[in-house]
């Protein structure tokens, strides 16, 4: 039945009764509270890594080779405590994770932002204008989709190698990998946004805006874009996790980050080679952190999509 019930709000205060629908939605969902707590923890850990970790795992001077392959929760030869164990070079896994996270989050966030900046405008214009621009863009997207991410990244890397002088290659390695991932991910956004725009532009509210002579930019930006938030947020959350994994794959192949700037992916790659000899902790803990990161980003993304939808408030 369609009658709207106007009930006086009960006399409790806090976010549940907040004027902001986003705050109310946050107070209602236990899942998003846990997920954002995890996310907050991870972000704090990346920021405070140098103070939280007792060892700089990538400064070879501070490593203790005698402590190699120590299992979790054991004390090393110098009295240092290895909460999550040590790897083949006597590196503290816990400290390595803290440092690796920084790089992973940096690469993930920047790659997603960059591909959003490329994909959304292109998708908006292609979907709205149609015609030759649309045809051209979609063919480019199709061609790009036939190449694996790694190939695209290697291509870009090769080009950069040729252009950038020897000395600065390591400093720009992070930038290059972000660029490589973003350039292979933008297609998803462009395609999704284009499809959604083609649906939305048929709706009468767009006609109503055209009727009073609003410009294309205003219609796309103010009318259509807000209605595309849901699919964009979902893809962004998924491709964030994807970007982190892509980076680790590239590092594994030796075309990604140099060993002096390791990431979560690098750690997983190292751990993988010791899995069958019984040193499971080197692989397990970085993987768990990656899982927690990807999952909480996805959950928060899903929640945000619903919280920002006025129909579900």
């Amino acid at each position, binding site marked *: 039945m369609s009658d*709207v019930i106007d009930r006086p709000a009960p006399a409790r205060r806090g976010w549940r009764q907040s004027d902001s629908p986003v705050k109310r939605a946050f107070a209602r969902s236990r899942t998003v509270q846990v997920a954002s707590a995890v996310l907050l923890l991870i972000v704090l850990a990346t920021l405070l890594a140098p103070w939280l970790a007792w060892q700089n795992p990538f400064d070879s001077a501070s490593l203790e080779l005698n402590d190699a392959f120590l299992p979790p929760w054991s004390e090393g030869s110098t009295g240092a405590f290895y909460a999550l164990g040590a790897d083949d070079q006597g590196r503290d896994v816990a400290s390595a994770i803290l440092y690796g996270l920084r790089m992973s989050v940096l690469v993930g966030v920047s790659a997603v932002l960059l591909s959003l900046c490329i994909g959304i405008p292109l998708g908006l214009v292609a979907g709205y204008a149609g015609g030759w621009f649309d045809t051209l863009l979609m063919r480019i997207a199709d061609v790009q989709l036939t190449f694996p991410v790694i190939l695209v990244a290697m291509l870009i890397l090769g080009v950069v190698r040729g252009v950038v002088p020897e000395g600065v290659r390591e400093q720009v390695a992070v930038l290059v990998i972000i660029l490589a991932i973003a350039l292979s991910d933008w297609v998803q956004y462009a395609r999704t946004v284009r499809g959604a725009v083609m649906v939305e532009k048929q709706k009468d509210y767009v*006609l109503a805006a055209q*009727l009073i002579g609003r410009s294309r930019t205003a219609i796309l930006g103010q009318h259509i874009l807000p209605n595309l938030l849901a699919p964009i947020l979902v893809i962004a959350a998924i491709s964030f996790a994807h970007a982190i994994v892509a980076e680790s794959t590239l590092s594994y192949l030796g075309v990604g980050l140099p060993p002096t700037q390791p990431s979560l992916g690098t750690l997983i790659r190292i751990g993988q080679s010791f899995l069958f000899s019984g040193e499971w902790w080197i692989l397990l803990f970085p993987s768990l952190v990656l899982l927690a990161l990807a999952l909480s980003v996805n959950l928060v993304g899903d929640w945000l999509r619903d919280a920002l939808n006025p129909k579900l408030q």
Partner: protein
Amino acid sequence: MSSSDTHPLPVLRVRDLGVTFDTYRGPVQVLRDVNFEIAAGEILGVVGESGAGKSMTGAAVIGLIDPPGRISSGSVELDGERIDGLRGEAMRRIRGRRIGSIFQDPLTSLNPVYTVGRHLVETIRTHLPLTEAQARARALELLEEVEIPEARVRLGQYPHQFSGGMRQRVAIALALCAEPQLIIADEPTTALDVSVQAQIIALLRRVCRERQAAAMLITHDMGVIAETADRVMVMYQGRVLETGPVREVLDRPTQPYTRVLMAAIPSVHQRLERLPVPEIGAPATAAPVRAEPVPHAAAAEGKALLEVRDLGKEFDLSLGWLERLVSQQPRRMLQAVDGVSFKIRQGSTFGLVGESGSGKSTVARMVAGLTVPTRGQVLFDGQDRFRTQTDLRRRIQMIFQDPYASLNPRWTVARLIAEPLEVLGLSSDPNETAERVAQALRRVRMTPDDARKYPHQFSGGQRQRIAIARALASQPEFIICDEPTSALDVSVQAQVLNLMRDLQDEFGLTYLLISHNLAVIRHMCDDIGVMQRGRLVEAGDAQEVLDAPQHEYTRALMAAVPDIQHAH
């Protein structure tokens, strides 16, 4: 509510049926004390507005109430056997075998990758012990039965190769596959054009009569009920208001709500000043029926505000240039509008009627300036719509068909109504804008407080009023209304039409009203034009055209309109 059946045992007997939804706010009863019977060969019409519980009743009979809903009381008996408690396989055997169903949109109920023949053969063999060949023969018989020409060829075709009316015939054939005792048809003609609707109604009546099947016809259209049903059941807010023979209920309704509901339906035969409006949400009591015939405005020689001269529009249906080049195909053009000319006098309402695809909406868009015509002119107040870009945008506004799609769901009402004011430079400071938004809302009988809400928080009728408020905000002289009430219930339609009429009186507005509903056109318009396949086949004074149609097509349209005053 004694039924007048002579049959000893009705096919369907529903007693004290109640349906309850368990929500997190507690149980909500959506159906209560529903009682009715349908005898063999009888058609029971179920009418009511959205949310009255018509479809819920149908779903309860075929056991399709999904959690959190449940049948909370009463019983459903099919041929003397209780079926309301059946679950799973037992219920599935009854559905399809003994109860056939027909839904509103046949395109979504047919699988697009199966041929029509496969649909029929599979359904027949699920329910009857026949061989493939026997089932095929029966499928062919059924298609012929529902009057599909060239049935043998049609068996091998896919649903998309059928028109809407033909698809609905296939749906009827599917429902008849296993010779059911009961047929439930939920809004079977709502998605169809008037003339096709008339054919489907006649077909439905014939198959039910011939097979002595009981039928339950759910619809919001009183005209369809009047032409099809033997008895009618009027529902309101989950209850049965009254049940009785069609003519008795339609001509002499005993309940005040039914009385107002009947009066709220515009008729093709007479024009009223205002339509009575049944109160939604209020208890079903009568509002005083004020129905004064409009003094027919003498064909006033008012000045033409809008003139359309030899308007034409071609659409390019060809493939993209690349595909065309590769597959060596010529361009294909569709002549959507061809040589349309008419004038609209200041302060009058011009109606444009026609079936879907007749080009009437394309004309509306060209008048609005949204589509550029291939040839011809649109003159507004003597100025060419497509040459002069003076302030015509402020003076012409538009109301769209679907109030769910015409308001941006992410915007508040205040922002929606303020947009034209700001864009057209009619208001510069926020206070003035807010004042004018409030004023526009008051004009459509809503409160300024509604400005803070989002469109989805309103009902269909309220949304359409918000759309009207947005159109009025820039104080236009001319409003194009493209099917403004076709997505609305009868009572809401009456409210919106009354509002449009009041606003016309108040501000001297001129309307171009596009509709497929001849009764709405009759009620609102001074002059009309009838369109068929892109051409204007007849135009003139509304009363003259509708009372004595000259063109064959207009006559056919008038004859096809289901009218509550028709007896069958």
